[in-house]
């Protein structure tokens, strides 16, 4: 294919979702207990977007991926030491607060400004990628807001697949109700694609890719501009964890049929 793509992936860092998370209220509003202490990962939804972006650029010579991420510089650096080993990209770090309790409009404003300032980024080749959902406590609207601020009107959410055509147009599979997909055809870039899980697995760590990425990443991290997010009057009335999914029960001598019946009943109750 002869499409040259400029793909910008917006991806935050989040506490490893399988860790013990506990919301707390501090002077600056709600947050997670000991959030800076928890191992962090790239937001899994956005990570899918990054892998899809890398896959597309690998098939389209001359294309490039930028990863725009807002978070504490030191924490970003740690996460990037792993992410950078997986696929090639250029990092655009923004030194900002951790946590997803920020106002989505304020976050979108900072990210849109950083994207608009990327040197060499061609808007006519721009695909703006991100996660359809987020493992943070975000409202799930940040990506759309960035697109609006950048004046991109073609937006797709819950994307599982994209197929490029020779003329620059592309087909998109979006998740819709009932476990089905909606097929859309877009005339071409620029467009916003909020990815669901996609179809690609997590690439293996490749130290060679990591070394190549790190040549630009380390200076970029050192120069990362601090960003202050406006609260815009956002106020949280309460915060709580999702319902506990795991319970421990020790039962002896239970038949497989009984176990199966109980599981079905449990799933039906959820």
């Amino acid at each position: 294919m002869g499409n040259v793509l400029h793909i910008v992936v917006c991806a935050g860092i989040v506490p490893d979702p399988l860790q013990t998370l506990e919301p707390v209220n501090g002077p600056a509003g709600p947050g997670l207990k000991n959030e800076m202490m928890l191992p962090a990962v790239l937001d899994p939804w956005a990570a899918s977007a990054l892998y899809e972006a890398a896959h597309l650029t690998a098939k389209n010579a001359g294309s490039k991926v930028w990863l725009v991420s807002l978070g504490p510089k030191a924490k970003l650096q740690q996460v990037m030491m792993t992410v950078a080993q997986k696929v090639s990209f250029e990092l655009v770090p923004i030194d900002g607060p951790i946590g997803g309790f920020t106002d989505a409009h304020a976050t979108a404003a900072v990210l849109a400004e950083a994207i608009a300032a990327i040197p060499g980024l061609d808007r006519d080749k721009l695909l703006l990628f991100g996660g359809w959902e987020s493992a943070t406590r975000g409202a799930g609207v940040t990506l759309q807001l960035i697109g609006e601020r950048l004046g991109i009107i073609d937006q797709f959410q819950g994307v599982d697949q994209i197929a490029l055509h020779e003329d620059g147009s592309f087909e998109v599979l979006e998740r819709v109700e009932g476990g089905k997909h909606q097929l859309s055809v877009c005339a071409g870039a620029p467009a916003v694609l909020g990815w669901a899980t996609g179809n690609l697995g997590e690439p293996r760590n490749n130290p060679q890719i990591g070394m190549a990425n790190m040549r630009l990443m380390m200076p970029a991290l050192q120069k990362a501009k601090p960003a202050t997010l406006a609260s815009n009057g956002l106020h949280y009335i309460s915060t709580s964890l999702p319902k506990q999914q795991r319970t421990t029960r020790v039962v002896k001598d239970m038949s497989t049929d009984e176990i199966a019946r109980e599981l079905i009943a449990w799933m039906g109750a959820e």
Partner: protein
Amino acid sequence: MSEEPIAAEMPAELPAPIAERQAIDVDIACAGFGPAMGGFLTKLTQAWTENPADPAFESKVTPGMPLQVLCYERADDIAAGVSGVVTKAREIRASFPHMQPSDIPMAAPVTQERVLYLLDPDGASRRSIPLRIADFMLRMAGGLAGVRDYAFELPWTPKFLHKHGGMVMSIGQFNQWVGTQLMTSGLVQIWPGTPVAAPLFNGNAVTGVRLADQGVDKEGAPVEGYMPGMDVRAHLTVVGDGPVGAVGQAIDQRIGMPPEHARREWALGMKMVIELPPDPTNPEGLDWKSLVKDGVLADLGSEADSLQPGTVWHTFGYPEPEIFGFLYVHPDRLVSVGIFVPSWMGDPGRTAYRYLQHYIQHPALWPYLKDGTLRSWGAKSLDESGRRGEPFLTGDGYARIGEGSGSTNTLTGSGVDEAWATGTQLGESVIELLRAGKPFSHQNLAATYEKRRRSSKVEQGVREAENARNGFHRGVIRGMFGMALAGLSKGYFAVGAKIHPLYQQIRRPAAFSVEGIRRKQAAARGIEEGRPLHDALLSARGFPEIEFDGRLLVSHQDAMLMGGKVQAAPGFADHVVFTDLRLCAACDLRTCISMCSGQAITQGEDGLPTFEREKCIHCGGCLWNCTQSTDGEHGNIKFVAGAGGLHSAEN
């Protein structure tokens, strides 16, 4: 110059690579990131930051650039290390003169120290007759002798055990704090999730490291997506991958150990981080800063009504006489509590997790921990051989630092600050050699690093401790006596003992002995109830069943899920290998199974032990809990390079 990986790490018949093995050249390659490597890299970066124009720091492999220093860590996060520690932190403070405990999450200055002898409230532990007599007398004396909650607090403890002036902290958080500063300097790259498979050798010179192959099956054979591990060629290889690290093991295998040196003493440290229930009288917890007056920390005395940050308890006597325990209190109502199960506890059914559950329920601890919540859990093998396990510290192109280099002081039970010190000593030496323009030859490294280390307090400490634990091989009472003797005489006097190879230290009960019969009965009960042998054995001995509460007292597998997350990236070979399964088939003790911290080693349907990488927390316990041997020294289990391990949430 040609590099060859050590043969022991490679499959015997490796098919031709289907992808080309990549290679890079760096100045310094580092294996493993822990306190020792933190010390080394801190010393290096601090010197470079003072004067980045110093020509000594110009790279030899990429002229015009700063030194290329790459550090590879197996775990997926440098904060994944599992250990709550108390340390005097003298050397750490020397590296960071302005550091405050409050700078590091979960750190607090030591405010209170107690040493408790725990009586057995269950009547189940394996106590010798003299110990039973002593226990009886203590119980009779009761409060008059200071016995409270089945615990006797030692009225006096020797100075060498004190940690006053030190810090309670989490190694995971400390590593993260150090790593952040190192990477911010721009000189050092620390790559997590990147296991090092083996050193590269040219003769006996180490010329770099080889990263682990990816896209391989359980046995290491290439499959789809095969990506050979990269060769990282280096002028200096710094080996700090701990006592069970693949690089250190491979060098020992290739070059051997110094005469009379062997790693024959180990312990498995298993711990929980528990969030204490709110204290109604002090809901926010005591702020230790309020205790500092004129720069001096007020002494809280030997007892306090509630657990205050900086509290340090060390215990012995329960759940078995050989098992030492600890309780360290961090800020924010967090407590690290755990046990050490030593290799000289010869019980073939020894285990850790269930013992830990009994330990936290001891009457001296449970009132504080009850209604707490498990926030984190983990385990690690500790090399307790000290100086007797010290390998050759230097060779052509390499130097060894940290716990794997025999720096742990087994008398004072401290290793973090010592490991850090060995790192800084190597850092100073490397800077000296760089400035002198000298190569990293065996001779030059010995004349700088080894010389510094031999004249340091680390060396003094490990020499004093060298024979301190001998007595434990002849019983707990002799062990305690020997420790006191060595400690008070600064190592001049000690109890003598012959330390046997590890596989011989595990006792083999006679078939018709009481223990042998009890094992058979427990085995039958275990099969009937579908539970492991060691678990059934402890119940048979009289330890009460654990009543799960779903928050703190949970099943072993639940602890792994609630206390963190096991990382096992696909595409890597199994890192636990049973060398000769015929020996496993002939073994009826299966200590590898009972001591497996993650229940990753279980008995298969064919009766042979099987390994599940997805459950392994990389504690390395299997390496020294095998009752069989192929060479008269090492066990039948190999622990080689592997990715992942346990991510504890707070460690």
